[in-house]
């Protein structure tokens, strides 16, 4: 075990830091959350700057146009971006972290040529059409149908929880091509242009009042067969393959931001005098200790991914613990703010949004099942086994 960074890693850090110091000064002001066109311009503009400086796809392989950095280098990259308070990935999220890697792994040469470079260069925005109203934690129950008609699939159905669909050019879409009840075995992965006739985007208001997510209504949308990635009915595997691309760094930015928040809360509590309350100090200390542990766990995951290429069990452990920790942090913040927390602002926003963490991308209940079954090897529930078989 060695937590020291190598000379090369430190060199990356130094050059990044120098570049960031310069480029961040010239950045325009951050747009308002509900001005989607401005958000697209801002996020894509930032991606363009990264791309031009050679940081467009730090974790992407070189032959896909990326930098081909190791997970540890990626960690350094994310640490420095967070430290400099650089913009996040924003609306580039699905393209850079999910659709792109899927096409890198499973796309044809033509698909790689068509889709990858515009993602890296900040030219095309992707969204994800996976979840459906009746297929949440149970994604394999999805119903959106695709019927082959000549060189097209004709797709009808409904998707939900699609991020920044308002400004997306393309959508990675899971559809059912197999029989009803075919579960994992009858799913196909398609690239859907968002301007295709029959695609309707209806923004979905969350409990935080935001429009981050939308519903997609698909009414006989024609998608060329050429847009299929992987074989027909093999879409489940195609979608899952991306998880192997995840190298334990998915939550690094948020984790570092959480550690910063703990420092800010401590500083503001000292200023206001509530630091004199030992029970508050101890609550803060307890959360900070757990954040430190999750930072250690992240470095373990990244190390494992550097060696083996996959993140191992740590990722699921991290997600379960971090989801609940974010909720405890938000509770603490709300308690510290007291009556002021009733005015909508950062604490309220964090508090309300933290509730989605134990739900989105697999509820904490499902996460615990996954840990118990895949990591600890406990048997599946009989009924679920029958259905998923």
């Amino acid at each position, binding site marked *: 075990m060695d937590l020291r960074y190598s000379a090369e890693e430190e060199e990356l850090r130094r050059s990044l830091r120098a570049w960031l110091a310069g480029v961040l000064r010239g950045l325009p002001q951050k747009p308002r959350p509900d001005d989607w066109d401005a958000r697209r311009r801002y996020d894509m503009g930032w991606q363009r700057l990264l791309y031009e400086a050679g940081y467009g796809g730090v974790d992407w392989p070189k032959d896909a146009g990326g930098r081909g950095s190791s997970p540890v280098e990626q960690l350094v990259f994310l640490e420095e971006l967070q430290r400099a308070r650089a913009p996040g990935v924003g609306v580039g999220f699905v393209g850079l972290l999910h659709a792109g890697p899927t096409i890198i792994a499973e796309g044809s040469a033509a698909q790689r040529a068509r889709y990858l470079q515009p993602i890296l260069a900040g030219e095309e925005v992707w969204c994800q059409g996976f979840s459906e109203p009746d297929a949440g934690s149970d994604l394999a129950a999805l119903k959106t149908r695709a019927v082959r008609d000549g060189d097209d699939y004709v797709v009808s159905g409904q998707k939900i929880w699609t991020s920044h669909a308002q400004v997306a050019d393309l959508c990675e879409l899971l559809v059912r091509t197999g029989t009803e009840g075919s579960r994992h075995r009858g799913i196909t992965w398609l690239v859907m242009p968002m301007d295709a006739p029959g695609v309707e985007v209806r923004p979905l208001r969350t409990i935080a009042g935001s429009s981050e997510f939308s519903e997609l209504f698909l009414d006989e949308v024609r998608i060329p067969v050429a847009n299929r990635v992987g074989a027909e009915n093999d879409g489940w595997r195609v979608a899952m393959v991306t998880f192997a691309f995840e190298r334990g760094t998915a939550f690094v930015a948020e984790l570092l931001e959480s550690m910063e928040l703990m420092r800010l809360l401590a500083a503001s509590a000292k200023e206001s005098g509530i630091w004199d309350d030992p029970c508050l100090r101890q609550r803060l200390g307890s959360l900070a200790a757990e954040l430190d542990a999750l930072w250690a766990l992240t470095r373990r995951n990244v190390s494992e991914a550097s060696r083996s290429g996959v993140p191992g069990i740590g990722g699921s452990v991290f997600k379960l613990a971090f989801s609940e920790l974010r909720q405890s942090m938000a509770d603490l913040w709300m308690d510290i703010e007291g009556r002021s927390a009733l005015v909508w602002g950062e604490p309220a926003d964090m508090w*309300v949004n933290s509730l989605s963490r134990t739900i989105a991308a697999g509820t904490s209940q499902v996460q615990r099942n996954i840990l118990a079954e895949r990591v600890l090897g406990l048997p599946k529930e009989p009924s679920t086994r029958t259905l998923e078989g």
Partner: protein
Amino acid sequence: MDFELSEDEGALARALRSICANRFPLESLRSRELQPDTVDRESWRELAEAGVFSLRTSEDGGGLGLGAAAVSVVFEELGRALVPGPLVASELAASIIGMTGGTEGNAGSPLPAGGPLPAGGPLPAGGLLAGQVRAGVALVGQIHLGDSWERAGGSFPGSGRGRDGILVEHLASLDALVVVSERCLQVVDPRVVDAEPVDRSLDPLTPLWRVARLPEGEEVGGPEHSRRWRSEEVLLGAALCVGVAAATLDMAVAYAMQRRQFGRPVGSFQAVKHICADMLVRVEESRCALHAAALAIDQPGVGDPVRSVAGAALLATRAALACSKACIQVHGGMGFTWEIPAHLYLARSRVLASAMPGAGELEEVVASRL
């Protein structure tokens, strides 16, 4: 000893539930979300006519002459139905100040029931309360001024001062504003309060105003009234919390029966069952604690009112916060949409909790009475 609801108490609860279902159905509440006036004065008048604010007023004074227990039963229903408005202060104004008959000299000038205050001129403070409360339609809000509850650092419960200055709920709907300090209770005309609306409130049904300057009001009660006000508002707040917790339990169970995942209702999964069972424990515990605290006020000798009110408030706020959170969790992704009202209960829990002493303070009170 009989700790079950009496027939009268049961009838009261049913009556309130029916009024709430008719006058405050969730759909009509939701049509007022994020508006500056979420209180419908007609519905409020119906609550008043049903006696909600005069339960404890003596029969001579036009009330029902009941005790804290009856009020806690009624307020649980109001909490369950998410009824918006200054419920607690309006009840306390009736039961505490109303009983005093108002300050001298003004008692004889009651205002027309439910009507607007006369424009301009000095506020007939005690008279306003004595008159309107008897009529039972006044919307009375409150503000807490720096007393022993004030915490270093700005946050302070009651309708109090935070980092954002003093926040008042429902200001635009109020007929009168009671200013609670350690020394006295004062009444202020809400129209002369210098305040600006908060852009967006956490609870879409509880609009807030930031008070820049608060004029001196008319004194309507002394330190004894202040003490009683502050103790009983905690009990009423706890009752609203129990109602919120109970409502979210019902919602969660209903959804868990209907929603299917992995080919079966999600409520058949142990993990979901256990969330619901833990909610049930919180609801039952906090409701029993609430009723015991109310009786400790009504029936000298059956318990320590200070300890039991603090304990009930502690469990009830915890129950409201934990259950409304669990309700969202049981709803999964749908719970995270604005459309499903689960988040309204969550926000209301925070509003109610912020009007109470903090958990640590309540625990200290209980510990000090061991």
